[in-house]
Each structure stands twice: as structure tokens, then as C-alpha cells.
């Protein structure tokens, strides 16, 4: 299955672009997605602890089970106001 990963704020610079398409086995979790992604973009791995993760418009934990077509957003702590 395929999920679209969107990078926001300075994660975009670290990832070298707005988004990336990842191919995963059915039933893969966000943790597995991140593992796969971090092999490709080690600079994001270093920021794991402060990374916020959303699927669509809602925050999700790393054990969230992804579905084909999901849109996953990765970003640093928010700073509105």
C-alpha cells in the first residue's frame, strides 16, 4: 500500500521537499513508516522525540495502523500565536 507523507515547517528543508510517497506492507503502523523513512532521511530521525504526527487532520500515535492512501503529516512542535 502507499501512503503520502507531508513535511511541514523546517522538516520540509530537512526532507528536501514538501512530500514523499512511501510503499508499505498492508497493516504497517506509523512506527514502521517512520523507521523506513528515517533510513532514507537520517536528519529526521534525530528529531524523532519532538516530531508531531497526524493522519489527515488528526494527531495519531506511532502504533496507529495505516491504510492505503493515508496522508501522514510530520512536523516540529507548533508555534501559533
Amino acid at each position, binding site marked *: 500500500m502507499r501512503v503520502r507523507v507531508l513535511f511541514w515547517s523546517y522538516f520540509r528543508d530537512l526532507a528536501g521537499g514538501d512530500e514523499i510517497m512511501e510503499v508499505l506492507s498492508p497493516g504497517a503502523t506509523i512506527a514502521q513508516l517512520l523507521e523506513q523513512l528515517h533510513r532514507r532521511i537520517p536528519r529526521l530521525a534525530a528529531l524523532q522525540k519532538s516530531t508531531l504526527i497526524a493522519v489527515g*487532520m488528526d494527531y495519531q500515535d506511532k502504533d496507529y495502523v495505516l491504510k492505503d492512501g493515508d496522508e501522514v503529516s510530520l512536523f516540529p512542535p507548533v508555534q501559533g*500565536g
Partner: protein
Amino acid sequence: MRRTILLTRDPISELWGMPDVAPSTAMGAIVNFHGVVRATEAGEPIVAIEYEAHEPMAVHQFGLLMNRVEQNWPQVESVSVVHRLGRVEAGEVSVWVVVVAPHRAEAFAACQFLIDEMKQTVPIWKRILR
């Protein structure tokens, strides 16, 4: 509870003051908060802040916060939030929140709650321009 959520690239300084919150006659308290871009950040002068948002998610997350306001303070009649995106010069308003309630205690509490929580959950980021 009436809600307004607006992300805008236009300056909101013209709008300073009362938005069209049209309080009903049962309301006795209106709290307005304006957040302004300061000309220094961590002691260093800055020119502007560039705000970026995951726009649909930001609107959705503001909506979730407003659900929580409604649960916590059911008497609040309306909550409005306006947040600038893009380049906001030092001295300009970046965020504006208005809460209308029967009494001041819940108006202040709800307004502060919305701002505090926004800074935890609403996907907006800033980049300092020096």
C-alpha cells in the same frame, strides 16, 4: 456556541476592536486578546515573522479546541479566532481571539484556554525574519 475560525493573509490591524460578535442580551462579558509580533525575539531584533500552517488541519484543530471550550464552559455564547498567515511585520497583530460569555470568569478562562491549547495542537509554525 457560535464559532468563527479565520486564517488570513491580510493584515487584521484594521479589524482591531470588536468583531461582529453580536452578543445577545444575556451576555455580560467580552474578552478580546490580540497577540502582536514583538520587534525582538530572545534579545535580538526581528523584522517580521513568517507564519505557515497546515490549513485544513489548523481549522479542524481549532474546531476541536472550540468543542472543548463548549464542554468546559457551556455558557460561552461565541468564540472567534483570527490568525494571520504569511509575513507579519513587527508591530502587527498575528492572532486575535474574542470570547463572549455571561460573566467575566468564564470569558477570561475560555480565552486563555484557547490560546494556551492552540500553542500545543494547532499546526501553525513561525519563521523569524531578521
